[in-house]
């Protein structure tokens, strides 16, 4: 038997993941028994991906079930305040690693009693570098009699490869991992015996501590694939083997005093690696900033071997400076791209990007975040995509995120660590190979409703565009989509048709995994897009978007930044109320002394 910790024996942990058409439904169940002769505290702690939404949590104690209830955040907050007044702490979800947030709950269980915890969460797996990745954090802390991870994948397009890896895997553990796939189904399981779990033959400690990752991709006979189930459709679009579109990149790099030392060294290391991978048809330039701006070349230059060598020499000599002026260098980057366009210095069919890397708030020049955002939005008339990389803890991430979203880009955190250069390089490789521009996806207008975003500025090789919606025409026989996009050399058109009668068979097959996944996938995608739009919307639009996202979060029972899950757990004196909120990125707090 497993060794009880603090008299609590966790005798079963079951991680059950079912993926249907990229949509993952995960159930983590843990069972424990209190072997002591008095009541003891049992803890349930799960790390789940930041991109996932919790959908349910329950506890069964002595046959009685305590269910989590998903409510509007404000309503839950009131309940939380009542809990605070009763002397109870709240907050079940906390930030943990780079990719994860931690859900923790602990409960007192009577002597010789059992408890079952069950957490359910869902997420849409995103394709990056040509594969989907499902990440499971494994940390049972103790030997567990029945420990198992089971991943079932069902992809109607057929699975092209499937792999499973764990950071803690040893030769002894290898036989415990099974992976197989054929046609549409994939299966991964990991069921280590008690002896396989031991850190050494005579140890009572576990070696299961790390990341378990399942990766796979699907077959792509055509550029797109449409799936229709129960009146909802989802369209996956990932054209293969296209020529790359040239890109014009301005790297706007913060070299202010706070970048001194390792941060600046890592930035230089990343830039040197990025330069190695720059295609000859690309154009680029550097804008370095502290309180001053230093532009490498008066205009963008082509990535010829000679220019790349000069660029590497320039990067190597970057040294740290003084304060941080974010406004002017970003405007300078816009101006450089405007001039390059006006003077036809860059290819007509090309992607123009600005990559801003900063580790702090603006403290000189224009320091008001709203004003900087306004200036950049106003200057960027041609709509260059702005990516903002926030380096380290002191960065005003909310400011960067809004500015990126307002300019068709995204923001990303670069965590201050030994692999920061790798993180920057990793981000670059995601956007390194654009193959399509201005992608417009057209669906039968009168037959559909509730369409998610259907026009995209770029498609990057190895990624995937996903669009979902609802079919409102019950008599529709054929569902078709036309995609128009600018390729490297010409305008490209793609068409996909699907016979709706035929989809019944598909739908039946998919339902065996779990029923309403297409609808849930649509809801997940819609909520994500509404929340993203909300960041850069004006106040009246913001309220509307919030309401739509909230309604969907409540209807589909997702814990999103707008909802909370209220969990009631038994206590020796009275029942206790706890709240699980979605973790939201914020600025690192500080402590201070001042007066007024």
């Amino acid at each position, binding site marked *: 038997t497993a060794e009880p910790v603090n008299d609590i024996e966790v005798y079963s942990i079951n991680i059950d993941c079912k993926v249907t058409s990229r949509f993952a439904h995960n159930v983590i169940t843990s069972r424990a028994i209190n072997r002591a002769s008095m009541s003891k505290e049992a803890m349930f702690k799960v790390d789940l991906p930041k991109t996932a939404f919790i959908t349910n949590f329950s506890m069964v104690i002595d046959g009685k079930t305590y269910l989590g209830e998903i409510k509007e955040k404000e309503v839950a907050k009131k309940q939380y305040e009542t809990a*605070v*007044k*009763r*002397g*109870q*702490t709240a*907050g079940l979800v*906390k930030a943990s690693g780079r990719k994860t947030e931690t859900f923790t709950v602990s409960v007192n269980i009577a002597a010789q009693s059992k408890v079952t915890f069950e957490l359910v969460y869902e997420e849409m797996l995103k394709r990056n570098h040509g594969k989907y990745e499902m990440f499971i954090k494994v940390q049972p802390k103790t030997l567990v009699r029945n420990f198992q991870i089971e991943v079932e994948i069902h992809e109607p397009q057929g699975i092209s490869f499937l792999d499973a890896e764990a950071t803690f895997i040893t030769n002894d553990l290898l036989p415990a991992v099974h992976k197989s796939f054929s046609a549409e189904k994939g299966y991964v399981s990991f069921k280590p015996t008690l002896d396989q779990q031991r850190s050494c033959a005579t140890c009572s400690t576990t070696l299961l501590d790390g990341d378990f990752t399942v990766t796979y991709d699907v077959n792509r006979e055509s550029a797109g694939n449409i799936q229709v189930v129960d009146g909802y459709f989802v369209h996956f679009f990932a054209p293969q083997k296209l020529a790359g579109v040239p890109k014009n990149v301005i790297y706007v790099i913060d070299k202010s*005093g*706070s970048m*001194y*030392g*390792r*941060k600046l060294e890592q930035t230089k290391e990343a830039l040197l690696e990025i330069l190695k991978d720059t295609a000859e048809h690309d154009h680029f330039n550097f804008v370095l900033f502290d*309180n001053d701006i230093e532009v490498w070349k008066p205009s963008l230059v082509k990535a010829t071997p000679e220019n790349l060598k000069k660029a590497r020499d320039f990067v190597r000599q970057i040294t*740290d400076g*003084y*304060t941080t002026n974010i406004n002017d260098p970003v405007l300078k980057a816009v101006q450089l791209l405007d001039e390059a366009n006006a003077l036809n210095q860059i290819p007509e069919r090309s992607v123009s990007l600005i990559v801003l890397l900063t580790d702090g708030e603006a*403290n*000189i020049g224009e320091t008001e975040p709203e004003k900087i955002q306004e200036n950049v939005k106003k200057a960027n008339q041609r709509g260059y995509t702005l990516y903002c990389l926030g380096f380290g*803890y*002191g960065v005003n991430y909310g400011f960067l995120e809004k500015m990126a979203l307002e300019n068709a880009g995204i923001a990303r955190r670069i965590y201050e660590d030994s692999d920061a250069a790798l993180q920057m390089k990793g981000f670059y490789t995601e956007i390194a190979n654009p193959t399509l521009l201005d992608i417009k996806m057209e669906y039968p207008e009168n037959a559909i409703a509730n369409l998610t975003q259907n026009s995209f500025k770029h498609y990057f090789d190895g990624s995937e565009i996903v669009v979902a919606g609802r079919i409102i025409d019950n008599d529709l026989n054929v569902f078709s989509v036309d995609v128009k996009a600018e390729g490297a050399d010409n305008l490209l058109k793609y068409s996909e048709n699907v016979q709706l009668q035929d989809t019944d068979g598909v739908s039946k097959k998919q339902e065996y995994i779990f029923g309403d996944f297409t609808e849930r996938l649509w809801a997940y995608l819609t909520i994500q897009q509404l929340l993203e739009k909300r960041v850069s919307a004006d106040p009246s639009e913001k309220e509307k978007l919030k309401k739509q996202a909230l309604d969907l979060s409540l209807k589909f029972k997702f814990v999103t930044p707008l909802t909370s899950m209220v969990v009631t757990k038994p206590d020796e004196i009275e029942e206790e109320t706890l709240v699980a909120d979605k973790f939201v990125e914020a600025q*690192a*707090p*500080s*402590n*201070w*002394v*001042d*007066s*007024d």
Partner: protein
Amino acid sequence: PHFVINVPSQNDALCFNIQEEPGVVLNLVEDQGLGIAVNGEIIGKKKIGNNVMSNETYFGKLGFVNREMKLRIEVTTETITIMLGKNKKEYTWEKTTSVKKKGLNLVIHKKNNMTLSFGEGAKFVIILHQFLKDDPLHMDFLGFYTLDDHKFSAHVHGLLGQFFHGIDYEISNVHKTKIPDKPDATMKVKNKLLTVTRGSQKDYRSDPRKGKKVPCWFVHSNAEGLIDGTHKDYIVPDIF
């Protein structure tokens, strides 16, 4: 002076005042591991003639020591003095200036604030609060903000420093008082029960005039029970 301690795990803040006589120097941060210390000297109790016009006290002088860099910095409401070994250089708040030596980055923003960082580690912001010379109640004073608290060693101490690696507490028995929006409650912290009051303090970094309100649980009696020992234990002989 008002102290504010952020508690991200509770999504809340704690606050307290330390009342001491002008001239007293308090230790704010002491990190033996990094060789960094920050002390602050109290000013206040403005008098006109023999009459005390205000009992408020503030920090009027801050002293920073970086042992490894053999560096001492004195910040008053009028000057900033950098002492590097035997060398000494003085700056005023009248001009935007930056000073950079190996590992030291100091930027003075004219009549406004000053940022100070030692290498990749400790980072501080000092806010200058200025008033008219003939203001009957107020006098110029300084606000002191720490950033990147996680970079300090595990042994960091001092009135602010002891909270850099978090604090656990529980609030119970919230009940109304005579002031409707300031309920009292019981705080369980360090195995003690303290009576605390809901209130707010201000963060003046983004708006040095009005400040941004930060709700917090106020700990009475010079934070007795919350801080290690009593506030008298943090009195040091001088700012260095």
